[in-house]
């Protein structure tokens, strides 16, 4: 059996091939890149029993229109971008698998909530690794599909063939960590918190609005109510991390994203906890956000909880599939 493939009919707003990122090259100035929402992409891959590190599609707000070449299993994670199989009108929810038939057209016209959806193929998307990763880093045209966002006519092949064994699978936990109510991102003190308590207070005390200029390099904030941060000038450039909240002289904070540059020269009063980076990835422009400060121990406990939730859900998904297959066999 040959591996299935998807042909891009319309690329959507920004659709890129992403995996868990490019580790160990930041000392050469190569950004980490990778999926903005590590939870969402992991859900999609886990549903197909893919190894965690394989590449999937990251789709942004308005997703692509894709046509199946050969029959092809897919799994969706992250935000609900309104996935629909045109032939049947069947709506596909994130956190489920689906078997596309040859010629089926799948579209993602956009949904009510969330920012990024993920589509996984069996064995991952078959593109060559560059510096140990299949992630696309757009600014340097590195990795992914020719180093760029997808365009009409591109064909994405699955790395392995789809067997009949892929039944319907449902993720028993949330496929996306997008917040239900008013978003609150939990933070720990950044390296400049002690030196700049006023800046930290101003950041924590205000409600911020996600700016339209946000992208994979960072989420830009503008002042909502009470948002005014004093100008603290610049620092000698130093290494920075995903989730670091930088405050440039303009006073409008930037939360560094997956494609962030390896170094930065602005004060960092706080850093979003790793457990909440998947929440950050799902905030839409125009949404408001607040920050809540927590201790390092609580931040690590929150990450452990997330990791444990994921592990339990993956086991359940696998168990439910076994049950489902057994039932089908019995019924058949």
């Amino acid at each position, binding site marked *: 059996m040959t591996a299935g493939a998807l042909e891009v009919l319309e690329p959507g707003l920004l659709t890129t091939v992403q995996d868990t990122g490019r580790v160990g090259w930041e000392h050469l*100035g190569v950004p980490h890149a990778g999926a903005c929402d590590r939870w969402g992409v992991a859900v999609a891959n886990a549903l197909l029993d893919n190894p965690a590190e394989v590449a999937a599609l990251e789709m942004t707000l308005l997703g692509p229109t894709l046509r199946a070449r050969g029959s092809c299993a897919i799994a969706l994670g992250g935000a609900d971008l309104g996935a629909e199989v045109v032939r049947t009108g069947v709506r596909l929810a994130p956190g489920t698998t689906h078997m596309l038939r040859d010629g089926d057209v799948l579209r993602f016209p956009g949904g009510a909530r969330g920012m990024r959806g993920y589509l996984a193929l069996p064995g991952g998307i078959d593109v060559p690794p560059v510096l140990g990763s299949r992630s696309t880093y757009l600014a340097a045209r*590195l990795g992914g599909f020719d180093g760029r966002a997808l365009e009409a006519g591109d064909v994405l092949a699955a790395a392995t063939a789809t067997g009949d064994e892929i039944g319907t699978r449902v993720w028993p936990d949330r496929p996306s960590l997008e917040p239900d109510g008013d978003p609150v991102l939990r933070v720990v003190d950044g390296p400049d918190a002690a030196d700049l308590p006023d800046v930290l207070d101003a950041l924590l005390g205000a409600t911020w609005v996600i700016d339209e200029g946000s992208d994979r390099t960072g989420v830009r904030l503008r002042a909502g109510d009470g948002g005014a941060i004093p100008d603290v000038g610049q620092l000698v450039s130093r290494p920075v991390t995903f989730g670091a909240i930088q405050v440039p002289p303009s006073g409008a904070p930037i939360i560094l994203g997956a494609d962030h540059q390896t170094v930065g020269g602005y004060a960092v009063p706080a850093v979003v906890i790793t457990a909440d980076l998947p929440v950050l990835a799902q905030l839409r422009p125009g949404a408001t956000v607040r920050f809540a400060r927590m201790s390092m121990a609580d931040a690590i406990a929150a990450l452990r909880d997330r990791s444990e939730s994921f592990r339990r859900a993956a086991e359940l998904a696998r168990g439910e599939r076994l049950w489902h297959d057994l039932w089908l066999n019995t019924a058949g």
Partner: protein
Amino acid sequence: MDRPGIGPFGDSALLLTFGDEIDEKVSRRVRAAARALGRLGDDQAGIGAPVAAYASILLPFDPLATSPEAAARLALKALATAPADDTEPEAATIEIPTRYGGEDGPDLLEVAEAHGLTVPQAIECHGGATYTVAFLGFMPGFPYLIGGPAELDHPRRPTPRTRVAAGSVAIAGTQGTIYPFASPGGWNLVGRTDVRPWDAQRDPPALFASGARVRFVPAPDR
């Protein structure tokens, strides 16, 4: 080696601080420390590869495999047993043929005039300096060069350009660089080279390694 400042940078990395300015001695120390810390990840689970800048090093760790406290203890121990001074091999000087001024270096005249120099004098100053690669950052292969001439110590442009051509040779203060890709940039553009600091097909893809020496040599216009 003296103990650096050490503290968390978020819940998954440590920041080691060796100073707060751009200084050749501090940079040598940082480069030596980065080499010592780079060996840690080989046999310690949960410790990532260090990322160095001018005066600080980021050391990522996996908080589910180790703790910030344990990672800090390991880092300080690795530094305590590292050689006191830099033992980086004396690298050959890399020469960068550079077309100065005009369209290739639109800021050269302004920089020269600001420092009471003629354009040929400014070119002689820039070409006469031996830079050191402090570290790579900002974008793949982008070298942060230190040791530029005091005569051309010129601040960044007040408003960054939205697009700087690949291969642009630029200065900011006494720092220098070569832009590997077309990108936005705020440094003063004094010339341009055909040398590419980054080529994904090359092994290694980065032309420069930290500690390397770099000189700019005037090249004829094309």
